[in-house]
């Protein structure tokens, strides 16, 4: 059943179509200098240079959800650094590149380290200030011509040949663009790429999966800055003249326009955007004077208007259109599963030494100022059981959940897991210790496949870093965890079409998918936050059946639930909370007959 995708003739046709398109564009790029005039090639080179800088922004904005106005400033820094190394120190442009990349890395790391801890709009604001400051700084470097700029920057030589003509530089520039595109595509489909996607739309999911939002954003920010640096280096050594005005805030905005126009959701958007803006600008500059209008002023007006209309009417730019026209990169083929293959719950089995409970809460409390949300809560979760934490609205269930999952720190008491205290441990560390969670408001990445969503759960178990992701050296590990994710999907009954997009699932199936993601992390304990909320009766039954099935396989589950009916037929032990305190604890039958519980739920017994 799972081999459908790779045997499908249509999929095969698409796979080969993808290769055909790829080959054709490569041949086209190689052949262009033979057919086009020098002027057109120069223009195309400029497109390539800006495509590099834009690609950085596409990665940062489209995938990391933060943006930077400083791409042009980093370009300028790269260009000026290399100009200094070649003109004033008399060294080779390649050494200039190395120096420029080191300088840019230092600046980007410093800036990112300061601002990326703060969410929201702090990074864009800092990059804005940085862009203005860099522009002015460049204008103050008297040894490099200050505001009037500097010329006679030497050409780059490659394999003993000096790339003086635009036709020669074309191969270097577009070669680098293609390398960057391939690297970016590899990165996005690797472990780090999934971490980037997990981050989009908020850091909570990423942190719960053991991903440091800060590190991922810093990586993206530095990558974006380095791509801009390479673009600036190419700019300096192919234009042979640079001045601060090429790297002012205005240029930064233009790169931003390129990324939005191309669409930040797709790496190819960088090329499309750079192409459209560079050529559009050229066209406007030709057209406006012939209409008797001042080109300089109107150019920016036209661009501004186009940009605003685009954001209003097509916020995703041209890339959705592009995605429809171009064949998709073929998906990796799926491993074949036999019906006997099961997910290996290794840590659930490890945890089976019965000397102490898996999870233990001792006198746990949480105050918010004068409000006591949870008071002196004590209960245990034993292995291989389903424990339900229930209570009416406002009873402190969600706070308790946050205290266990590391989002809030208890003001008193100890939470121990596997016999060791986890009180105050950050949420990010818990998944590695064997505590996996789901969310009440489902947190999935809806434009990613089921398989990728589940593989996010295995993030902390995998090793591939940035470099092996970019160069595609992670094949073996990816394959191993792909089949593991498929097994997790099989556990929850979603394995029939793992390449479906998560956004196309019904809510009930999305909850199952979240459980599969939790299972992929090899948990000792799975904690579920109101898993039955919003589900229809049949979906609740399916969920209950799955949880029973998991318990039978040795899993331990703690669920925080509102729905009394749902837990009564499912849980081994029930803890009832009311006004932050433990009202009752026991087997479902005892809870059902407890007058205190009846009073809390039904408002008193007659």
């Amino acid at each position, binding site marked *: 059943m799972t081999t459908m995708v790779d045997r499908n003739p249509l999929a095969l046709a698409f796979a080969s179509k993808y290769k055909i398109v790829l080959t054709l564009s490569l041949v086209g790029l190689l052949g262009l200098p033979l057919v086009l005039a020098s002027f057109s090639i120069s223009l195309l080179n400029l497109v390539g240079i800006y495509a590099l800088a834009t690609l950085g922004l596409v990665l940062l904005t489209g995938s990391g959800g933060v943006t930077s106005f400083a791409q042009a400033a980093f370009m300028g820094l790269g260009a000026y650094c290399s100009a200094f190394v070649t003109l004033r120190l008399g060294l080779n442009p390649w050494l200039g590149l190395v120096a420029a990349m080191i300088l840019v890395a230092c600046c980007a790391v410093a800036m990112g380290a300061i601002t990326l801890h703060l969410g929201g709009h702090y990074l864009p604001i800092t990059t804005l200030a940085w862009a203005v*400051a860099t522009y002015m700084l460049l204008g103050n470097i008297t040894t490099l011509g200050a505001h009037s700029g500097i010329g006679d920057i030497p050409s780059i030589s490659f394999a003993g040949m000096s790339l003086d003509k635009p036709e020669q530089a074309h191969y270097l520039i577009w070669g680098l663009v293609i390398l960057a595109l391939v690297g970016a595509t590899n990165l996005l489909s690797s472990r780090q790429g999934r971490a980037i996607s997990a981050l989009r739309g908020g850091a909570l999911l990423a942190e719960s999966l053991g991903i440091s939002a800060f590190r991922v954003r810093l990586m993206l920010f530095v990558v974006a800055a380095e791509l801009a640096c390479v673009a600036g280096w190419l700019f300096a050594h192919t234009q042979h003249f640079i001045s601060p005005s090429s790297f002012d805030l205005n240029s930064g905005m233009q790169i931003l326009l390129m990324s939005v126009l191309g669409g930040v959701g797709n790496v190819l958007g960088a090329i499309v955007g750079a192409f459209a803006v560079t050529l559009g600008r050229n066209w406007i500059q030709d057209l406006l004077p012939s209409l008797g209008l001042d080109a300089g*002023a109107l150019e920016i007006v036209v661009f501004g208007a186009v940009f605003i209309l685009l954001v209003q009417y097509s916020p995703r730019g041209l890339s959705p259109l592009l995605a429809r026209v171009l064949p998709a990169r073929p998906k990796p083929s799926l491993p074949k599963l036999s019906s006997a293959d099961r997910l290996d719950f290794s840590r659930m089995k490890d945890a089976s030494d019965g000397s102490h409970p898996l999870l233990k809460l001792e006198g746990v409390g949480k105050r918010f100022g004068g409000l006591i949300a949870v008071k002196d809560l004590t209960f245990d979760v034993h292995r291989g059981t389903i424990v339900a934490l229930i209570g009416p609205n406002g009873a402190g269930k969600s706070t308790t959940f946050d205290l266990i999952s590391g989002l809030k720190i208890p003001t008193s008491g100890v939470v121990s897991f596997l016999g060791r205290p986890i009180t105050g441990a950050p949420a990010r560390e818990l998944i590695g210790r064997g505590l996996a969670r789901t969310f009440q408001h489902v947190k999935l990445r809806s434009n990613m496949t089921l398989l990728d969503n589940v593989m996010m759960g295995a993030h902390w178990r995998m090793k591939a870093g940035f470099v092996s992701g970019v160069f595609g050296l992670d094949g073996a590990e990816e394959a191993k965890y792909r089949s593991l994710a498929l097994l997790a999907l099989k556990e929850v009954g979603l394995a029939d079409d793992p390449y479906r997009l998560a956004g196309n699932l019904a809510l009930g199936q999305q909850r199952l998918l979240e459980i599969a993601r939790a299972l992929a992390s090899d948990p000792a304990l799975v904690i579920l936050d109101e898993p039955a909320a919003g589900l229809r009766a049949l979906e609740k039954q399916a969920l209950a059946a799955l949880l029973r099935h998991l318990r039978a396989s040795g899993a331990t589950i703690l669920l925080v639930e509102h729905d009394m009916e749902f837990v009564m037929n499912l849980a081994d032990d029930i803890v009832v909370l009311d006004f932050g305190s433990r009202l009752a604890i026991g087997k479902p039958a005892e809870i059902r007959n407890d007058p205190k519980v009846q009073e809390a739920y039904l408002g008193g017994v007659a």
Partner: protein
Amino acid sequence: MDFQIAAILFQDGLASGAIYTMLALGFVLVFTTTRIIFASYGDLIAFSALTMHALQEGQLPGTVYLLIVLAIVATVVECTALIRERGYRRIPWALLTWLVLPLLPASLCLLAQGTELHPAVLTVLTIALVVPIAPLLYRIVFQPIETASTLTLLIVALVLHYLIAGLALLFFGPEGIRTAALLGGSVDILGATFSTQLVAVVVAAGALALSLALFFNATLTGKALRATAYNRNGARLVGISTRRAGSIAFILSGAIAAIVGILIGPTVTIYYDSGLMIGLKGFVGAVLGGFISYPLAAIGSILVGLVEAYASFFASSYKEIIVFLAVIPIILLRWLTAGHGVEEEEEEHA
């Protein structure tokens, strides 16, 4: 540096600080009610000074054309929206607010063409011409994307700066201007001599801060704006129109910009694109307040003014660099003092 120079620099710094304070208040006002970091705010200041100058020279200011264009576009946008949701009965009202009202000062200006006017009348006319630009821009540019992320709104606001600076170049030309001074001389306060300009600026900033405080605490509209700032959905649930709150915030910020433009016109040379730089400094001040606190934004802005004044003495060519890099330690400070919890941001909607 002796005491005398230090005192002069302090006066200078205080004067620019007071200007930046007014700007920062405008930034915070717009951001809290609409989540828009209105980066093109400074352009309104440039427009104000340029308009005042043109009126003083007896020319027809380009603002008149800008206003006509914006009013027509806004009316078309509003009426299209109304027709689409079949709110035909609201069309006359829309025509009145979006077309007639903004065109009023424009037509006054056209009528008064060629007649000699008193400086006070010119000032009022300038304010009347500049203020409507802000809500018109809000209606045309921002209202259709009001649910977009803060980031998208910021990007659009920056792009808008380039768009309207380009228009300013078309309407006003590339020459820098200084308006004729409305106030001259100096006054003695407690034995020290201050220029009248400085006193006017500081008084204006103080009066503005005071009236904003009164507006927010003592009027229902002000409270509605605060409610919107605190919780948009909550405000909507109790019947506050967040769009109306946004329009009011933009009108107020437009008024602030118009006043600032008139105040700085005689002392700073203004070009069509000067707005961004002036605006960004108020913006740096607002950053200190984290964009939400008025008093912190005011303190931050005065600090920016002082840093700028002293930096221009010690390292004049690096003055701007120093001012803008000051953002980074400020942000660092905010990070050190703020909590470090995992915060969930708004989901990007694809």
